[in-house]
């Protein structure tokens, strides 16, 4: 003890800036999880540091649940959820939220889930819960709503995919990494095909609602400035008598990683600068390799000092932008994708760029990373995680992710340690395992036919 004391005193004096929170990891989130008899999972996380409460519902359905001939349907359905219900006239859903002062409410669809979220001033918790309950129990599914929203979705498709550079590759061609035969759920895009959107019928909407939008397939998270007892009372009152539905069928996917190289030329008339996209198959989010893959994506592509930016943009001047993603639209329970994109500098040929990307991608698997790179990636993860939990909505989404992808909302407090336990060797090993040419789809994106 006597020898330790001076050391401790020094350490304290040397700290110029006493911090009221732990400076090393995100604050612990206290989680209260329970289920209603109809199967609705409820997760509450009370915190009074703002006057805002977030109501966030995830349905366990995404494009992975779509069948052949109905691609794009999960997303199309998401639009239907804003078209009114028994107690909410068409157009009133958004009006009620807006009038309550909610901002940034929305829904979104990924491969694995569909979410509906609203941050509200805390005096309007009841409205947020009630709106979610009313559409879960009595969504208005009419021909006119459906036709109208189908046109909106087609317009969204034109805007996001057909009229923007590089989105064709990212939103559609990227899915060519998987085989329809062995893994249709992850071999088609979220936005879907125009033909399938046109073929969708109102009866499909009803069927989809009954199968996937039942309480037993949903999780409700409430986070922020509320009183738990009052929230539980309201949740019971609003959701208890929504009837349980059937258990949805399992999602078939038998594909594995390393099933052979592929390449494709993508004609993208809007891409003034050509680009190269390399896509690699990676395992699911809860796989032991995933944290190392996330850190690998940081080391390769995040920040000025990332390898791709340093080598391809700054030293060789081959690229203007080099984003790297593990699963660009969010985590997956099925096979995922690791994606390297490089947009060519003026006058640079795609062949040159592709070779340079391959060299950089292979280098980590062969030579490994430095400890400084590992520390940097872990610090970046630390900062992103801490700053990604500032608002009630961010906390709610973190809880939903932990619950769906790691099987338990409490994992929100342990996933951080999973990333801090990654070693430099782990990163080298996952790079060698997954960033291999025989595990890749390469897309060459040009504005004119090659």
């Amino acid at each position, binding site marked *: 003890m006597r020898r330790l004391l001076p050391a401790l005193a020094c350490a304290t004096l040397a700290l110029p800036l006493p911090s009221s929170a732990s400076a090393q990891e995100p604050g612990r989130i206290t989680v209260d999880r329970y289920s209603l008899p109809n199967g609705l999972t409820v997760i509450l996380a009370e915190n009074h540091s703002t006057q805002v409460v977030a109501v966030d519902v995830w349905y366990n359905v995404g494009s992975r649940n779509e069948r052949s001939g109905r691609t794009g349907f999960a997303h199309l359905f998401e639009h239907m959820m804003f078209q009114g219900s028994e107690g909410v006239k068409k157009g009133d859903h958004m009006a009620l939220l807006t009038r309550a*002062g909610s901002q940034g409410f929305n829904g979104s669809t990924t491969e694995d889930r569909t979410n509906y979220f609203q941050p509200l001033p805390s005096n309007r918790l009841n409205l947020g819960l009630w709106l979610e309950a009313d559409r879960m129990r009595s969504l208005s599914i009419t021909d006119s709503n459906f036709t109208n929203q189908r046109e909106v979705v087609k317009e969204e498709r034109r805007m996001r995919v057909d009229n923007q550079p590089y989105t064709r590759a990212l939103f559609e061609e990227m899915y060519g990494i998987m085989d329809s035969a062995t893994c249709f759920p992850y071999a088609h895009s979220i936005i879907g095909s125009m033909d399938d959107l046109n073929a969708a019928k109102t009866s499909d909407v009803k069927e989809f609602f009954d199968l996937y939008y039942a309480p037993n397939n949903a999780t409700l998270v409430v986070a922020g400035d509320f009183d738990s007892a009052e929230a539980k009372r309201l949740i019971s009152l609003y959701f208890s008598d929504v009837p349980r539905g059937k258990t949805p069928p399992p999602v078939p996917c038998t594909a594995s990683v390393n099933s052979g190289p592929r390449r494709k030329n993508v004609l993208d008339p809007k891409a003034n600068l050509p680009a190269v996209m390399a896509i690699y198959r990676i395992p699911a989010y809860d796989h032991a390799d995933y944290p190392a893959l996330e850190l690998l994506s940081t080391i390769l592509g995040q920040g000025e*000092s990332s390898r791709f930016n340093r080598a391809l943009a700054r030293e060789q001047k081959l690229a203007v932008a080099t984003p790297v993603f593990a699963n660009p639209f969010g985590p997956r329970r099925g096979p995922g994708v690791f994606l390297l994109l490089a947009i060519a500098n003026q006058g640079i040929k795609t062949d040159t760029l592709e070779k340079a990307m391959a060299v950089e991608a292979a280098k980590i698997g062969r030579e490994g990373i430095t400890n400084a790179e590992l520390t*940097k990636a872990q610090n970046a993860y630390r900062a992103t995680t801490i700053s990604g939990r500032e608002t009630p909505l961010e906390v709610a989404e973190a809880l939903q992710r932990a619950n769906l992808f790691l099987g338990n909302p409490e994992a929100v407090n342990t996933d951080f340690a999973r990333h801090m336990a990654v070693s430099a060797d782990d990163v080298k090993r996952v790079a060698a395992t997954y960033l291999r040419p025989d595990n890749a789809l390469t897309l060459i994106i040009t504005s004119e036919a090659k």
Partner: protein
Amino acid sequence: MRPAIRSFARGHFAASALLFAALAPEAHAQYPRTPPPAASLKPAQFPPFQETALPNGLRLVVVERRDQPLVSISLSFPAGSRYEPSGHEGLATLAATLLTKGAGARSADEISATIEGVGGSIGASAGSDFLTVRADVLTPNVPLAFELLSDVAVRPSFPEKELELARTQILSALQLELSQPSAIASRAFARELYGKNPYALRPTPESVRRVARSDLVAFQKARLRPSGALLVVAGDLSFADARRLASRSFAGWKGAPIASAAGSAPPARRKTEIVLVHRPGSVQSNIVMGNVTFLPGDPRFFAVTVANRVLGSSASARLFNILREQKSWTYGAYSNITRPQGIGSFQVTAEVRTEVTDSAVAEMITQVRRIAREQVGTEEFSAAMESLVGAFPLTIQTANQVAAAVTNAKLLGLPPDYLQTYRTRLAVITPPMALAAARSSFRGDAALIVVVGDATKIHDGLNAIAPVRLVTTEGMPLAASALTATAGPLNLDMTRLVARSDSFVVMVQGNAFGFQRTSLEKNAGGYTYTEATQIGAIVNQTTTLTFGEKLDMRHVTQRGTMQGQELKTDVTYSGGRVKGSAMTPTPQGVRTVAIDTAIAAGTLDDNAVQAIVPALKWTPNAKFQMSVFSAGQGGLRPMTLNVAGKESVMVPAGTFDVYRAELTGGQAPVTLFVTTAAPHRVVKVTIAGAPIEFLLVK
């Protein structure tokens, strides 16, 4: 079978609800059939912040927030793009980019490795008024953040090689930006709306190329001074610690930015005008409509904010409801007001399907007129007001949001109690006040409307709404006749074609380096044009084009070598298609392309442009739209030949009065100098960006 169960549940529930409602006060424990009412609104105070000024004039604001171990520091200067010298647009952005690319004792790589190594970030950006440097770190790294901030703001080194790298990247980003219709629309809108005011200006490739290192050094010296700058610290740090670190980090730094002239007033507009930016092949139209408004401290701001809420600043507003929900014309339609340090603007934006462009524009005008003429009804007004007031806590959730609000208020010079009284000043606005403010600020009858889209499909519809001025994506005027010409063949005058042969000398950087001989012969059934070119040992090629009687394309053959690689093209134009093959040298070797493409009537080969020059109907304002096929590139592209001016040029063959005609749409813009007198001959050719000229010898 859940629908049946559900409707049963609903029926059962409805009956019991009625029963309970009639009999007992416990009815409140039943599922409510209508939206539950609001609980009382908590009074939201703007979070406290402290401020002071350091002896050197630097203002410091601290927003203390201790719940997460994060600190964000921003340092803003009056050094936005409005202070750029004319012709140097992009200077402020280049300066901002380069501040963190070498400063103090650190190189660019050392700065990024240092800050990213601790999970932090540092960066700078320039808007139209201010340049802001910002660092975000975890609490233990705050001293490092201050050290880096003071280095980059006070001691940037602006290395030449970083400037060239940043320039290359900005030029590429510009190219990318100019390919996006929304960016084309916003640039055109700013240019037309603000006229000679600096807010009109955006960087161009030319202005970015012009910026030299000395410009950056001078700009930093003149504008990045402590007096007039604002340092805002938000997060897990006390006021005392922030002041101590700021005083230490910025000790010895002195001075104020030099005064600069106020910008010219934006042009006055008395009636609505549509500026149509022709973007061939667009599948959508991007629409921006609006007008200039007022200075940031204008008392109308609060009433205009409420009126704008009713009109279009949310997804429950009129524009979204009508254009998206009722008509399905668009994914979104919004209005917004900008509030820069100078004159602000009002804008309505939407991106719509091409075929409904005119309907959407007409509806936007109708809605802007309506908000400025009719008082908003009580219910709609209350909804807008409640949403603005209720949303206030959501706008100040994080330390950064609070800091951004404080920064903005301070930089715009708003009153000291602005943030504390914001909510109450909004809440006192009445419908008549909103109407009065909308009438003077939203100009439905004197609006600028910019539409970016395929003008061949939308010009006439728009012209029926308001006078249309047609421009290219670069902002150059375009004649409406050019739109129809694109689709059809060029209007050619065969009588002006005379058999002849011309010789050119090829000058490279002022030295004769080769020659070109062209000849046109009339023969049975049409014309043959031959062009033989030799440039040093680099190019040696002969191109032969055959045309029908009306100069319609028949065959093109090309033989020769380029940089030692073989060049060989054979294509035939027939029956609405072009077929054949082209061998083209590329840096990776000779590439052979098989060609079989459908083409419109009147499509020219890219080698034929010079051949048809004599048959064009030249006038001082002539603009020729051509559909051109390029075998080497394997594709069709629209090209434009515009007379840009008249001048006199001296070439070895003599002095000629010529039209200076710019050929754009190809790989690089080419300028042709064509005699004003018939027969029209090309006497000189220059290629943009290349030190090469073709001059007529005889």
